[in-house]
């Protein structure tokens, strides 16, 4: 952070004081939606008990973290955001998780700044002292401002998020190319580049703003009991690779939110047979212990992912 502050002083910006990370601020969320998905194979969309006992099969865990802080405001209310992103693959060795390779742990810090809002001269001054990324590089052509400060902040947050996803993708692709064994990826794998087609990558999605159900299949998903899964279905979109997916209940909701303890699994479309879906589900069910308490997401969070997140927090502080 000292390097970033020096660059800001050099550029003439006034430092902000004591602002919390952008990730902790309430964000206008996308509206939740239901989207119908086509089941894979013959037969209707249904719920079934995972065939077989939980079994240990995951060989590594991949996760990323991000933190965005407004360090200063440029005249005109332009936020200068310090973004820290990190991603890593932690390999299982016995019952412990260890680092896999140096290149499989990536940490980046940069100032996320809307170049068009501060001008080339200021940009050059900042870039001279610290890595800088333009948060308006995808802005519409001809958009020369002015911009609402909250829009600029949201753009910075999005830019940081995209940067994190890039690091995660790079780590996932490295493992899928040179790793050995199934990789538990926190989040979907559809936008994870080559990993989306690899038999090693398993994406586990914990949030359900988009439910791949319709009116008839929604009750079926919500009623899944612990250890049950749905039929696999295809998830596809123009900007993402198609993947096979299904819902799996890790823990009974027991009076909680009906989405509690529910995850959506993504694997490469090729080879996504019912037997493979059961096998992957058994691996995921085995990762329920130990519990990830006190993390609030413990109902759907594997302890291996919690450890990976803790590792990233430790090395980025």
């Amino acid at each position, binding site marked *: 952070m000292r390097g970033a502050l020096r660059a800001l002083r050099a550029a003439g910006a006034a430092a902000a004081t004591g602002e919390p990370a952008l990730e902790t601020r309430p964000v206008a969320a996308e509206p939740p939606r239901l989207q119908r998905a086509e089941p894979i194979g013959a037969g209707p969309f249904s719920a079934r008990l995972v065939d077989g006992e939980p079994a240990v099969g*995951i060989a590594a865990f991949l996760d990323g973290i991000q933190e965005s802080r407004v360090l200063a405001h440029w005249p005109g209310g332009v936020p200068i955001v310090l973004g820290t992103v990190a991603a890593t693959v932690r390999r299982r060795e016995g019952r412990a998780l260890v680092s896999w390779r140096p290149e499989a742990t990536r940490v980046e810090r940069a100032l996320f700044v809307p170049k068009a809002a501060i001008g080339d001269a200021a940009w050059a001054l900042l870039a001279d002292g610290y890595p800088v990324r333009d948060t308006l590089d995808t802005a519409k052509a001809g958009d020369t401002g002015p911009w609402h400060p909250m829009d600029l902040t949201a753009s910075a947050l999005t830019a940081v998020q995209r940067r994190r996803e890039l690091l995660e993708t790079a780590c996932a692709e490295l493992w899928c190319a040179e790793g050995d064994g199934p990789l538990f990826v926190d989040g979907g794998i559809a936008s994870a580049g080559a990993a989306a087609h690899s038999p090693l990558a398993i994406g586990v999605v914990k949030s359900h703003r988009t439910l791949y159900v319709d009116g008839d299949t929604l009750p079926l998903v919500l009623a899944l009991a612990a250890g049950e899964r749905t039929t696999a279905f295809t998830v596809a979109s123009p900007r993402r690779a198609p993947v096979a997916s299904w819902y799996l209940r890790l823990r009974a909701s027991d009076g909680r939110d009906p989405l509690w303890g529910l995850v959506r699994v993504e694997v490469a479309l090729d080879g996504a047979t019912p037997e493979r879906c059961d096998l992957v589900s058994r691996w995921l069910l085995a990762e329920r212990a130990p*519990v990830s*308490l006190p993390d609030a997401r413990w109902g759907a969070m594997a302890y291996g992912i919690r*450890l990976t997140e803790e590792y990233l927090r430790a090395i980025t502080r």
Partner: protein
Amino acid sequence: MSIGRVVATERRPNTASEFHFWTALDAPVGIGTIVRVEGPPAGDGQAVSVYGVVVEGFSYTDLQTPLHDVIGADGDPANALRAPTDRTEIRLYTAHALRHIPDEPLQPVPMGIVHLATDADVAVALRMDGYLKEGQRTGIPIGVYRSGAMQSPVYLDADFLLGPEAAHLNISGVSGLATKTSAVEWLLSSIFSHFPEQKGSVAALCFNVKGPDLCFLDQPATKLDEADKALYEALGVPAEPFRDVEYFAPYTARGYSLATLRSNEALAHNVRPLTWGLGEVLQYAEVLLNKDDVDAKADALIDFIRERVVQQEFTDSILERAHKVLSFSDLEQWFRDVLRNMEQRNLESWRTHHVATIRKVRNRLTNISTRCRGLVTDDGTTHDLPWGAFRDRAVYVIDVAASEDDAQDLIFARVVSQLREQLERRTLGVDHVVVFVDELNKYAPSDGPDTYVRKMLLDIAERGRYLGLVLFAAQQFRSQVHRRVVGNCGTALFGRMDMDELATPGYATLAPATRTKLATLDKGQLMVRHPHFAQPVFVRFPRPAVMGGREGMERYPAEPEPTLEVSVTRTLRALDPSVTLEWVKQAIVAAPEDDVLRARNRTLQTRPEDVKAFFKAQFRQRVAAEPARSRPAPLPLAGQGGDDPYGF
């Protein structure tokens, strides 16, 4: 070998005296481990090292509450073993600093890598490098510090163990488990082997206050295993019993044998009686007389007797004769003479002393030989320690285990006083004496009346180091010993301790984990506090190379009390092997028992050339019986008188 890394947080910061570090789960670190921290170089480029000893260890995971572990295992502990990932666990240790290099400026322990201490590190950490230099060595091995397979000798500084810089040693521990006596036996061997030449000569004097533990110091141990022998070799001490040992003990009440468990004839060659007469005891009368006995008036009379009567010719106008009072018997005669003549002249006081005072003092003084029968003799025969002729590296054991409390107190008071006086005059024969006393809480209790013995022990503790008089004291409960006595002991050893004792305030400076370790120490382990050591350290010492009490009693069982004839035979045979039981029986036939014992004691004391002749000469001449001669019959009276009724 690097094993950890220093950590500090706002809630748990490091200071100059305490630091924290974490290690891998399998690191060979535990309570008492000595470590070295390598910090970044100081401003002047000098490497910074901090040595510490681990006093506490913590282990925790990222569990917020045990309930989470229950939830994760669905309430079944066996399920926890089936989890594919272990929770992250930290091993966090707290260490207390032993030494900083450089020592100025004294700063908090820096972040750095933590290493297990090597031999050289241990020497530096405990500041032993200051007294182990070639040509100036004053190190006395106390044991080895162990860390994994490594064993490093630990030395005490003789200047701080035996004076003059500091002195005295105190050892605490539960009876039977703490190995107090074994530790002292081992340490005496170590001292005898390593006492620096430039400091002169040293001897030991031990009071055996209970059991047979100290009764076989000249006999070899039979249970030394290879590990013990290796320790002896590593520490440079021969694994041998003491070569020069003498035992002293008073007689039993009957006087036939010595009151000691070392009474087997096979070991009698170096067992001697300890008996004192009036001259030896009167000076210490106050040991046996309490405040009620000795008021100012009685005290004045006792002083008068001591200075004007005992061991000199005394005359007075009221006495029938001159008295030379050399023994309690003589003193009794003197008292009788005084009191009888006072009664006859109807005197209430004599030489300012009231008759009641004289009677009281007579009663108390003449009672001493009764109260200390076996130790104090009426006839003045004495057998004493070889004052003035103490030998270098000799051990003198006074067995008081079978003596009454009064006799024990008297022995203790006189022996230690004599040691002190002779060391002050440099006439003892050696330059240093180590006095070993067990059950110190009995002789120097923290509460109770101020006794002569306690005052003497205080004096030794506070001033003895300048004379070469060193106290090695043991007790089960250190908290029950007078504070100034334990406080003046420069070195303290702790074996396994009682939990209640560890809860007393005196141990509050120790970390909880250290106290727990003290409560569970194995035999042969000690915690050592020494002036050079900034923190106490744990060491291991070998079994003593002398026979233990229990084994000694099995191999050399105590003899039952013999008959008078056998007792005399044994005593005289030590002086003249031609003495037989038959000869003794003939020599003492019809003699009163007291006379026989007196003759025996005098012969032993004198050690004449012609033992038999001297012994027989001690008895009073007996007139040989003659048959009565017949008396001549009375002659008849000459003539009968006439009418004279009286016959004239």
